């Protein structure tokens, strides 16, 4: 196993820059997820690590050794492709053995390695079939087997689950996690699915248009999104982003949000760690997770504030009921308990003050709040997954 370092990596086609100044570090045994919408450069970055995509400048190190000038085969990596890329004319056995064969590994040793992988992935019964005779899930396993058999320093996964149906995807996701826990290998995993990212990663890299937006643990990415882009990308439904103004009154910091009716809503928050960042009257963006807005009877929480809002739409999903509120002209989504009877019309909600984030209007960057490190709300993963 090994650590992976990517240093000021650039890649461009002519004038078009597809990867910009990428710096990523994955320690030994890290499960690194590259997360972003399609076209954000995450697959290109993976290809660059694999040696399939040339880079314009920068460096990639595996175990401290620069690999940019090495052929893919000399980088000691293995890759699982989105399309699985199984060789259609070869049996499962030959697919798994192909890499060893072209490297001249002796047959005995090959057979041993295949047996070991087949055992791990429970594909022993499939070894003599061709890929065309396998189901999607089985192909997925074979593709992983082909990577696993090599025991490489770094495993690369390119959206490996996106071609599976929903149920199988959840199963395979759990299997990959188990596999990872057993191998404790270094993994780079590309996905556009935030649930996959949250459940699998030890470290997530959120990307957009070839630029890294945030690197952090799933908790950090969810709880303290670095900017409005990450806030709006992570979570389902994502964080509510509402225009607001900073007010100071009696030594307290208030967030002024357009309320229902004429009266603006004032929410007391701990305020920015550095008060000079946001003088009186500064426009900011308030970020509130849907689960930080709820009905009074649903939860007991210390730091809450009442808000009045108009319920526009109620969408039960079974485990949760999503309520679309009109808060002074802004659309806000709240995650409520399914048992709570709600009708369209005026209603009083509670907002968890500790869960409010503030972002700079012009840059979209998150503004650090005072005493924040202590008051981190716990992230409830199950809720995420159910979305």
């Amino acid at each position, binding site marked *: 196993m090994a650590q992976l370092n990517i240093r000021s990596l650039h890649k461009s086609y002519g004038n078009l820059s597809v990867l910009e100044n990428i710096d990523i570090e994955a320690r030994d045994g890290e499960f690194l997820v590259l997360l972003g919408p399609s076209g954000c450069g995450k697959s290109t970055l993976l290809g660059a690590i*694999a040696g*399939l995509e040339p880079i314009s400048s920068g460096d990639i190190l595996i175990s401290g050794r620069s690999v940019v000038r090495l052929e*893919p085969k000399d980088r000691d990596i*293995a890759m699982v492709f989105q399309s699985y890329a199984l060789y259609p004319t*070869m049996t499962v056995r030959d697919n798994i053995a192909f*890499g060893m064969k072209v490297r001249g590994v002796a047959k005995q040793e090959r057979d041993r390695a295949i047996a070991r992988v087949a055992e791990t992935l429970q594909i022993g019964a499939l070894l003599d079939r061709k890929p065309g005779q396998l189901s999607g899930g089985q192909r997925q396993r074979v593709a992983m087997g082909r990577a696993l058999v090599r025991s490489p320093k770094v495993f690369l996964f390119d959206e490996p689950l996106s071609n599976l149906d929903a149920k199988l995807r959840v199963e395979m996701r759990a299997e990959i996690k188990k596999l990872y826990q057993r191998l404790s290998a270094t993994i780079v995993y590309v996905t556009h699915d935030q649930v996959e990212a949250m459940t699998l990663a030890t470290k997530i890299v959120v990307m957009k248009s070839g630029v890294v937006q945030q690197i952090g643990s799933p908790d950090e990415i969810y709880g303290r999104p670095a900017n409005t882009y990450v806030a709006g990308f992570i979570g389902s439904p994502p964080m509510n982003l509402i225009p607001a103004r900073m007010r100071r009154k009696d030594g307290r910091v208030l967030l002024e949000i357009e309320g229902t009716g004429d009266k603006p809503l004032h929410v007391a928050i701990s305020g920015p760690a550095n008060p000079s960042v946001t003088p009186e009257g500064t426009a900011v963006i308030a970020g509130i997770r849907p689960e930080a807005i709820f009905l009074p009877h649903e939860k007991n929480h210390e730091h809450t504030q009442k808000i009045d809002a108009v319920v526009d739409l109620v969408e039960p999903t079974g485990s949760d009921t999503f309520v679309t509120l009109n808060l002074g002209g802004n659309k806000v989504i709240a995650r409520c308990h399914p048992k709570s009877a709600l009708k369209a019309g005026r209603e009083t909600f509670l907002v968890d003050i500790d869960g409010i984030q503030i972002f700079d209007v012009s840059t979209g960057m998150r503004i650090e709040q005072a005493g924040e490190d202590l008051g981190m709300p716990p992230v409830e993963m199950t809720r995420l997954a159910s979305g």
Partner: protein
Amino acid sequence: MNAATLASPMPRSAVRTDFGRLLGWAAVYFTLFVFVLFFLGPLFVMITTSLKSIEEIRLGTLIGIPRHPTIQPWIDAWSNACVGVDCTGLSPFFLNTIYLVVPATLIPTAIGALNGYALTQVNFRGQNIVYAIILFGCFTPYQAILIPLAQTLGKLGLAGTINGLILAHVVYGLPFTTMFFRNFFISVPSDLAKAARIDGAGFFQTFRYVMLPMSLPIMVVVIIWQFTSIWNDFLFGVAFTSGRNVPIMVALNNIVSSSTGERPYNIDMASAMLAALPTLLVYVFAGKYFVRGLMAGSVKG
């Protein structure tokens, strides 16, 4: 055609619709059947004529079934039909053509497979231009290369020989085989070659172990295509070979148009059938691949 009666989905009355539909189906089947007769007619006439004696041909009718079928015309066609005074039948020319068609099919197929792979599996500068240059070769008007090619073959000492003809078919087959394989390999997901690279396979290993086995169906198409084109070729044969070296279609044309005495129509037809048989058999047993080649390489017609 009376397509208007095929069906009327907005009936004024059910009776009229049924009648109209019936008439429509009748028109469809009648037309299809007439064309079946039209297409089968010449084949039927050729076969029946080839089984008749020359007396029966003169006295009977064109479409009459042979009353005393004989395979003598086929035997004559094979072993002693005459071109001028040279009465060897088709057999030596049949063998010529086999000697010609095997290398002239296999060599361009092998090279075309590699070319098609090289044109698709990696991006390199000028790739599209290279392909366009080769592709245009498929449309070469052969009249425009006859004179230089005849000159070249003469300089190489290959004028009038089968080996010269092999060379001609190889070089002008290359654009086609390259095009076929290129169009196949371009549909192969690029991930496969990437996976092979990560597995450690080089350029040629990827071709040999991953791509070539995959291309088996298209290889059959290409082989059949190339075989049929060469077997049925007349222009190159008549331009670049002579005498005993001519391929089958040239020999057939010589036999049929050599005008000494009374025309043995039965032997002519038997000769034509013999010459057509290999490609007809290919059509019967590998029609799927033949048609695929036809559709993909329709340019050569």
